[in-house]
């Protein structure tokens, strides 16, 4: 696993304008690796949820920072890493929303990370040095 840190990463400022650029970059590479149709849209949604999370929460203290994106084409999977250099935070530990709750009791947020978990084949968090790294894995032959 250690070699994955050597992969080339591309960075964008953690701002909403970067979202379509991150999506386009990753989706172009994913298509080349054989991810198509519905899986590509699910990847797009997962990317949005993670990127928006970073924009809204990672750099609260300083107000600005970057999102770094890595793409690793492996034999049977593609692994996308989304990185920020904010305070240590594992989004996978957030409480799962109760989707059976009625309208009046329903909180407005909390559904984003749930979709990332549902749509990706594997999601893993690591804190490495000053970086929060979220690895999204998609199986190629689904």
């Amino acid at each position, binding site marked *: 696993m250690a070699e994955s840190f050597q992969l080339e990463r591309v960075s964008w400022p953690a701002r*909403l304008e970067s*979202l*379509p650029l991150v999506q386009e970059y990753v989706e172009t590479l994913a298509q080349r690796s054989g991810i198509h149709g*519905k899986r590509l*849209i*699910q990847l*797009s*949604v997962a990317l*949005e*949820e993670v990127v*928006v999370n970073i924009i809204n929460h990672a750099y609260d203290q300083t107000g600005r920072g970057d999102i770094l994106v890595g793409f690793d084409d492996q034999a049977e999977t593609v692994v996308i890493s989304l990185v920020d250099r904010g305070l240590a935070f594992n989004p996978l530990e957030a409480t799962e929303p109760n*989707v*059976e*709750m*009625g*309208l*009046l009791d*329903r909180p*407005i*947020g909390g*559904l*984003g990370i*749930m*979709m990332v978990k*549902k749509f990706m084949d594997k999601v893993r968090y690591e804190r490495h040095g000053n970086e929060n790294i979220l690895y999204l894995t998609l199986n190629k032959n689904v």
Partner: protein
Amino acid sequence: MVVLFIKGRLDAVTAGELEAKFTELIQGGNESILVSMEELEYISSAGLRVVLLVAKKLHASGRKFEFAALSGNVKDVFDISGFYSLFKIHDTLEQALSA
């Protein structure tokens, strides 16, 4: 009943625009709202957030809020989020209008 057709991508970039449109509809009348999603190809949690906000407002004023013609990603996202048990969702726009 007002029918609102939304198409394309409902994401963090466009959700604000839709929220403004709904606010206009809510303040400008007293009708129920039906949203046709036949040409909506993408929705994220930013879109669901707008749907929930609007639903709560309409519910408070006793107006109906229904959906029609969901497909693909939109259907999956509504399903995962439990929206099928929160809202009246019609298979087609025709069914919704004749209901």
